[in-house]
């Protein structure tokens, strides 16, 4: 009788718990700066982009600068106003939080910030920097202009590389798994050794740990 009741209790519990969340995978964020524009996306370890997820951008002192949400593809994008570190925190609302920092070094000088923001939105302009300038360019390009364009073009080009490096870092390698299993084996051996010592001290009938 008692068991049947506990089973019924379990069934009721199951019913109640159907309305609960779980999982339980790591949230990740990728972000990169192209010119003055920071763009990126939030995703879950092992699949799925984090859609409609809160993104908070803070400065090095922890003040909130921008609050936004990821779109249906999990991506976000914002303009930077100053050359400083931007800390991007993504919070999926179910206990998963992660953050990444765009360092000041990845952002252009403040004087050209606005121009670059414009240019990166129009990649054709950026490409123009690589192609030799036409025979009669209307206004001759100044050195800072060229530097900015080159920087923007490079940022654009290395973005896939950065994504790849990020994905590479996420990989769980066989040796991580084997290492963990080794630790467990070691702990078990330790536990066994300790209990064995106690057993021999207390006599053969004393039982274990």
């Amino acid at each position, binding site marked *: 009788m*008692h*068991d049947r009741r*506990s*089973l019924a209790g*379990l*069934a009721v*519990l*199951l019913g109640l*718990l*159907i*309305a*609960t*969340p*779980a*999982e*339980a*995978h*790591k*949230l990740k964020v990728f972000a990169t700066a192209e010119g003055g524009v920071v763009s990126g996306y939030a995703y*879950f*370890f*092992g*699949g*799925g*982009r984090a*859609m409609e997820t809160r993104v908070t951008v803070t400065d090095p002192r922890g003040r909130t600068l921008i609050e936004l949400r990821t779109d249906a593809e999990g991506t976000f994008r914002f303009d930077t106003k100053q050359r400083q570190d931007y800390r991007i925190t993504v*919070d*999926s*609302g*179910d*206990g*998963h*939080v*992660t953050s990444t920092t765009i360092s000041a070094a990845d952002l252009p000088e403040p004087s050209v910030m606005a121009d670059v923001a414009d240019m990166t939105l129009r990649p054709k302009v950026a490409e123009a920097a690589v192609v030799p300038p036409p025979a009669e360019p209307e206004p001759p390009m100044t050195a800072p202009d060229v530097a900015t364009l080159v920087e923007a073009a490079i940022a654009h080009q290395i973005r896939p590389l950065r994504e790849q490096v990020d994905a590479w870092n996420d990989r*769980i390698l066989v040796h*991580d*798994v084997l*290492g*963990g*299993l080794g*630790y*467990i*084996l070691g*702990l*078990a051996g330790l*536990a*066994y050794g300790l*209990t*064995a010592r106690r*057993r021999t001290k207390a006599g053969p009938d004393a*039982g*274990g*740990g």
Partner: protein
Amino acid sequence: MHIADGVLSTPLLAAGAAVAVIGCGLGLRRIAPERIPQVALVSSVLFVAALVHFPVGPSSVHLVLSGLAGVMLGWAAFPAIVVALLLQAVMFGFGGLTVLGVNAVNMAVPAVLCGLLFEAVRRRGNHRLTLVAAAAAGGGSVLLGALLTTLSIRLGAPQFGDSVWLVVATALPVAVVEAVFTAAAVGLMLKVRPEALEAPQLVFSHA
């Protein structure tokens, strides 16, 4: 069941750590030396299980197997889970070190609870009822764990709670998979090695 570092408030983290230490102590005192390999084996399985992802809708979920741990280990599931979570945090970056106690409690309390309920049913000796209990333990501990995780976030980080109830659907497939898995594992053990389920650590206290 991996809440990340930096989400929960300090009092909750401290409480979780305290409960985890107590649970570990209780569990360790109940492990007979000849059971240590079994505890280690289950701990290894738990450690690896979280790597088994399967897609659910736009997202993906992973196995928890806390029910199996409870069924096979009873109280000893506590230290087994703590070790598995610790290594997952260190090796894979799942969860985190400060939040280890809370995560362990969220997983181990349902495991022990379901393990004890299973043990009560198993002792009656009815094969079919035992399998049903194993399935219930497998699924129930996942769902109970999800509930505790939700509660932790509600209590320890109310500002994060806005979409906590929206992840509803994701726990359910895991619970179903683990219910089937646990019942199958228990069925196999009953046939091949019934003493593996006899859980002497539930009967004798070595305290």
